[in-house]
């Protein structure tokens, strides 16, 4: 078998294994920690009899392993269970919100990925000169402030003082595409700033690594133009590390979304998750946790697979 097919299938299998492990870990946590769904419904003041009755009713007395596999089977069929607090079907509630979250993350990625690569190239081009230092100082600052504070700083100065864009990112189906974009402008900027710094720094390091290699010197000593050196020799080798950087940061974006949604009261998965953590609504927290973990694991897996596919030693074995 071609070594690349072997490696990629190994990585895919590992991804599935991790996904399975993560779901077990999340479920196991809710079991191992004190308190359960019955307790959450009735509160701390509940009498032991009431708790026991409710546990019986909810099937919590059956072995944990049985309930885990029921739960997992349900997820695989698209059944995420029922919310404790409002008795609504979780899959229904999530469907729309997941779409909104992906919409927001998608636009943040569209803006931040090209920008990060461009700034990374710029920083390499003017390495150790003022553009590089300025970019690194600004990114250091944005790394040093939490997402939600960047959000409020922007709301304060852009939305309130300048009167541009809406401080709250409400969207619904009746809005036109343009209205939606206008509505998510600020959260997109916040998310962009948050991932931009990491992505740009990692891109800079990846490109520098390639530009300092001996084969780029060989290309320069062939009398090629700067553009040819970069396009023919640096780019084919820099693509894999950059894609890797992008994937890792998209994974990071998924987490950033949670907080930013709360800041802008955006009707997405993150907002939904945080609300239900506060309400101790275990089935919703479980479902959201597994979905976030799945996206995160998936993106990390893609990053690794790209690295495997791009390696010429693996693509053309001896």
């Amino acid at each position, binding site marked *: 078998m071609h070594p690349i097919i072997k490696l990629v299938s190994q990585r895919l299998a590992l991804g599935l294994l991790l996904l399975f492990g993560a779901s077990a870990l999340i479920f196991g946590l809710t079991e191992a920690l004190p308190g359960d769904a019955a307790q959450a419904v009735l509160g701390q003041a509940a009498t032991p009899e009431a708790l026991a009755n409710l546990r019986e009713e909810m099937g919590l007395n059956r072995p944990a392993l049985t309930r885990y596999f029921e739960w997992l089977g349900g997820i695989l069929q698209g059944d995420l269970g029922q919310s404790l607090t409002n008795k609504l079907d979780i899959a229904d509630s999530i469907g729309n919100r997941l779409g909104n979250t992906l919409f927001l993350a998608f636009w943040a990625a569209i803006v931040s990925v090209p920008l990060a690569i461009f700034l990374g190239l710029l920083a390499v081009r003017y390495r150790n000169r003022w553009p590089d230092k300025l970019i690194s100082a600004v990114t250091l600052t944005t790394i040093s402030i939490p997402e939600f504070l960047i959000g409020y700083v922007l709301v304060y100065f852009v939305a309130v003082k300048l009167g541009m864009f809406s401080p709250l990112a409400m969207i619904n189906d009746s809005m036109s595409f343009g209205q939606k974009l206008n509505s998510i402008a600020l959260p997109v900027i916040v998310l962009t700033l948050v991932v931009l710094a990491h992505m740009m720094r990692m891109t800079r390091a990846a490109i520098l690594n390639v530009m300092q*290699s001996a084969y780029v010197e060989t290309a320069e000593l062939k009398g090629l*133009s700067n553009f040819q050196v970069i396009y023919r020799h640096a780019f084919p*080798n820099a693509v894999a590390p950059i894609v890797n950087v992008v994937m890792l940061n998209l994974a990071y974006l998924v987490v950033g979304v949670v907080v930013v949604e709360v800041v802008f009261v955006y009707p997405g998965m993150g907002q939904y998750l945080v609300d239900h953590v506060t309400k101790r609504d275990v089935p919703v927290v479980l479902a959201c946790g597994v979905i976030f973990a799945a996206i995160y694991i998936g993106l990390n897996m893609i990053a690794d697979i790209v690295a495997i596919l791009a390696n010429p030693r693996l693509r053309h074995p001896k």
Partner: protein
Amino acid sequence: MSDTLLKVRDLKIGATVYPPGEKPHDIEIVHGVSFDLERGKVLGLIGESGAGKSTIGLASMAYGRGGVKITGGEVWVNGRDILKTSHGDIRKLRGGEVTYVSQSAAASFNPAKKIMDQVVEAAVEQKKFSRKEAEGRARELFAKLGLPDPDNIGDRYPHQVSGGQLQRCMTALALCPEPDLVVFDEPTTALDVTTQIDVLMAIKEAIADTGVAALYITHDLAVVAQVSDDIMVLRMGNTVEYGTTDQIINNPQEEYTQALVSVRSIEHEEKQPTPEPVLSVDGITARYKGLNFDVLHNVNVELHPGQTLAVVGESGSGKSTLARVITGLLPPRDGEINFAGRKLSPDLAGRTREDLRELQMIYQMADVAMNPRQTVGTIIGRPLEFYFNMRGSEKRKRIIELLDEIELGEKFIDRYPAELSGGQKQRVCIARSLAAKPKMIICDEVTSALDPLVADGILKLLLDLQKIEDVAYLFITHDLATVRAISDSIAVMYQGRVVRYGPKSQVLSPPFDDYTDLLLSSVPEMHLGWLEEVVAHRKMESAGN
């Protein structure tokens, strides 16, 4: 006007250094160097690390590596000063008129592109040949350079061919655009000697056939003597001596050049074997965990007290594995090791403190063999403390004695390894092993990472110390000149087997087995015409068979 291709006048080169914790500042690394090179001639640039030889070579392409800048002087190529010419003209120069062969072809080829694409790129880009013509030329060069399957090797990727082959591909890359000048920067340094001689001959013939001029940069005077017409000796950015190859080799004027020429001429009288060996390795067979083949096959050697056994071989011969087996780091699959009249436990855990004390080891890379967080005093003092329970002033007195023995002295006692030069570091490692008062020291390529003169100093020191301390050396090396200088007996290793073993005089005298013959005849000798003699001799032999 004569046929001068390259004329360098008062070349000065500077570099910006960034010492951590200090402000970056500029230093000068080449201080006014001048030379001429005529068409079709070869000039050898020779010097130790830091001599500025590569920097000067790249200056002939108006190129500075990293933070290196040409700060003064003139570099004339084909009648114009390339330091004053336009950017576009420099691009025509690089890859068209002047090309470059680096030390590490493995790093200099783009891993993502086929060899052929990279070999013809400059020729096509400089509009010297069409793609088709260039490919034809490349195949001719592949054949001329002795590469296997010259018609198809270009379709492979760099990692799919061996190191020696890739180095020849790099030479083809440099010759393909029919340049006027090729800069060879240590093109054979990374290769084994038996591979080096083939590449060297291929380069020499290619230079002769194409009539190209060359700058040949190396630290090995014996190598450069084979290929160049003139030689310039450099040291710390200055010209030491500049003359014809014949004059430099046979009649060097400067003291430094004389030292370089006479390097490795240490004389060492062979000692007679004693009745009782200090170490005997009996039928050792070993393999690494996870491998399904043996790295050592039935190795038998003996080492006598106060003497030196040289274990010589090329990379992959198993010589370093043998050291690991003797030290107990790699328990063998079969065979046993007897040391100082007792049988040693095969693994480290089973050895007594006395076993460990009497069998010391010195490493190739002295800078990673010493803990960077410990002072020289701590490094040398620890064995004293550990084996002899020495403390306080008694320990300090002994450390100073040892520092005197390695010719460094008391002032080094509080220094850290980072403050020492390469040779000084290796001396401290020697002192550390002597501190244990061993019966035997394993020296694993201890001079390979050092410049020739520094290496010579270390070898002399080791020989002196052997007389004083009566210690035996198991000397592992790939360098036959070192073997001649230091050994009493020799074991030649090839593919995990000892192919020849005995007293020095016997091993180095004919009749030879095939491998030893190949190995011995491949070591460059410091006289003119050696390369041709060897190649002619080999041709005759193969014709005779």
